[in-house]
């Protein structure tokens, strides 16, 4: 009987996430400085005739932006989930551990170098640079985690690494040539604007491959979350799993930084929210739920960022922090004994 009840709860949770995702996705396309009606959106997707201006707004601006929010939001939440599993630390995430800032620094350097040499930047180059930056930050965090045993100390060292990387980024931006500064500045605050369909294709490949690979790790992640000894005694290849977790979480958060800049709190907060929604921490459920939850979170945040003070746009992190930071505080307050 309990089993049936639990199945029903999982079903409900996923239904809620999917419905929210669809509703928010359509809202993101409809709502904006030029409103587009739902019927027009429907016609656009069914390949019927829509006014050229409307088609342009949907196809060139809103659709890629909504798709980017969906994919990158999912990637962030997944990356956060992997980091929390890896460190068994409920307040770990790509932004708090300084991994996003490391990726940001690497991308900023690449952008300025390319400007100097007048070279065209491809999406793949951006992702690679972000990945290198993310892995370097991760290496620092890992080195620190060997020296500090407390969860809070690990987070503090991550935040410090983040500050150092941001300071260096600011320094570089200050001395960069004028024309690029505006672009760099906008991006370095985090935003889903200015993403085109070609970008979306690249991120879709990276994020969906990442998601599938994480899926295949669901079983060992479950054992590893309990304890390393347990995982080993059940036959898990622990060193391989650890390397996989580090690399996958870095790729996922690097992909976000490369296209949207650093986005805070989605990675930390989403896993907790979906865990409460599901009432379970089983990875096989958490992985898809985190992806959906992160997508919902970012779609909603981007909608708010665009709309609340329209035509002025807020940076995406401003909105995600408002929702995400309280979640982190609640989690910390609940576990104050352990932290």
């Amino acid at each position: 009987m309990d089993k049936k009840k639990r199945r029903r709860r999982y079903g409900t949770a996923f239904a809620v996430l999917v419905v929210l995702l669809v509703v928010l996705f359509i809202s993101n396309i409809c709502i904006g400085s030029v409103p587009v009606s739902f019927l027009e959106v429907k016609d656009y997707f069914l390949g019927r005739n829509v006014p050229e201006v409307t088609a342009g707004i949907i196809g060139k601006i809103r659709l890629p932006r909504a798709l980017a929010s969906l994919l990158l939001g999912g990637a962030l939440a997944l990356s956060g989930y992997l980091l929390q599993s890896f460190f068994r630390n409920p307040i770990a995430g790509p932004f708090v551990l300084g991994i996003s800032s490391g990726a940001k620094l690497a991308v900023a350097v690449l952008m300025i170098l390319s400007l100097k040499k007048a070279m065209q930047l491809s999406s793949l180059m951006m992702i690679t640079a972000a990945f290198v930056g993310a892995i370097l930050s991760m290496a620092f965090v890992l080195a620190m985690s060997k020296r500090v045993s407390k969860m809070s100390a690990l987070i503090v060292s991550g935040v410090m690494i983040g500050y150092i990387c941001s300071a260096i980024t600011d320094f570089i931006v200050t001395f960069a040539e004028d024309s690029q500064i505006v672009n760099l500045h906008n991006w370095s605050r985090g935003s889903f604007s200015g993403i085109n369909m070609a970008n979306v294709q690249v991120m879709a490949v990276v994020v969906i491959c990442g998601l599938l690979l994480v899926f295949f790790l669901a079983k060992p992640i479950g054992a590893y979350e309990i304890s390393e000894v347990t995982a080993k005694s059940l036959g898990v290849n622990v060193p391989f799993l650890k390397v996989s977790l580090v690399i996958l979480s870095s790729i996922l958060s690097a992909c976000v930084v490369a296209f949207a800049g650093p986005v805070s709190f989605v990675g930390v907060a989403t896993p907790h929210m979906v865990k409460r929604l599901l009432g379970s921490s089983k990875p096989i459920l958490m992985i898809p739920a985190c992806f959906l939850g992160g997508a919902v979170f970012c779609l909603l945040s981007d909608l708010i960022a665009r709309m609340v003070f329209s035509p002025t746009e807020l940076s995406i992190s401003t909105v995600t922090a408002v929702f995400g930071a309280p979640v982190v505080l609640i989690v910390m307050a609940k576990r104050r004994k352990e932290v």
Partner: protein
Amino acid sequence: MEQNYEFKLDKLTVGYDGKPLIRDITLSLEKGRIMTLIGPNGAGKSTILKSIARQLSALGGRMYFGEKDLVSCSREELAKTMAVVLTDRLHTELMTCRDVVAFGRYPYTGRFGLLSAEDEEKIERAMKLVHVQELSEKDYGRISDGQRQRVLLARAICQEPELLILDEPTSYLDIKYKLEFLSILLKLQRERNLTVIMSLHELELASRVSDRILCVKGEFADRYGTAEEIFQKEYICQLFEIPDELQKSDLGKGILSSILT
């Protein structure tokens, strides 16, 4: 003659970071017997258990279980041969006791770890065997230490091992749970011919349940034998370095004689 000795250590040397702590442990244990490690705190009982469980890599020597070489067999094979309950802290957020027990089926399930009807039945039976079926749906984080220890034993049982490794399984249990736990172990030994290797702090319990005792102290394993051979007053006092005046005091005499009957 040889075949009776299922578990064998041949010059096993254990330690951390390449530094040997205890050298050249050589012993054999028949299948279906219980071996207990005793010795003073910090002597290296856990280190030996961790090395047998391959949580620590052995610094030298061989380990066999029957024909199987425990040092070189695959992770999967080891997990099907040996179940381990050590004293590490577990993170079990939102997990029911049943979820925790179900991890025992890990070596047998497929790529995504989905449980078959057969797995479910084995989980059920293991929980019944150690009397935790009524905890099935309870949150593992909210049960007592005694209950936890039994849930972990159920996990180990449904892993269907031939060899069970336990590190101080009774340390935090009150006397009722200690007795209950050990009586379940004896039942497993009888019914499933399970070989058990564990460490115990309580000498009076060790002397009652063990077929063989390994005394751990200093650079080499000090002694290996039956309870009668080991539990001699002189030897125990020497093993734990109990000073003369304590041995001769009324308190010391009383307690020692109650352990060493």
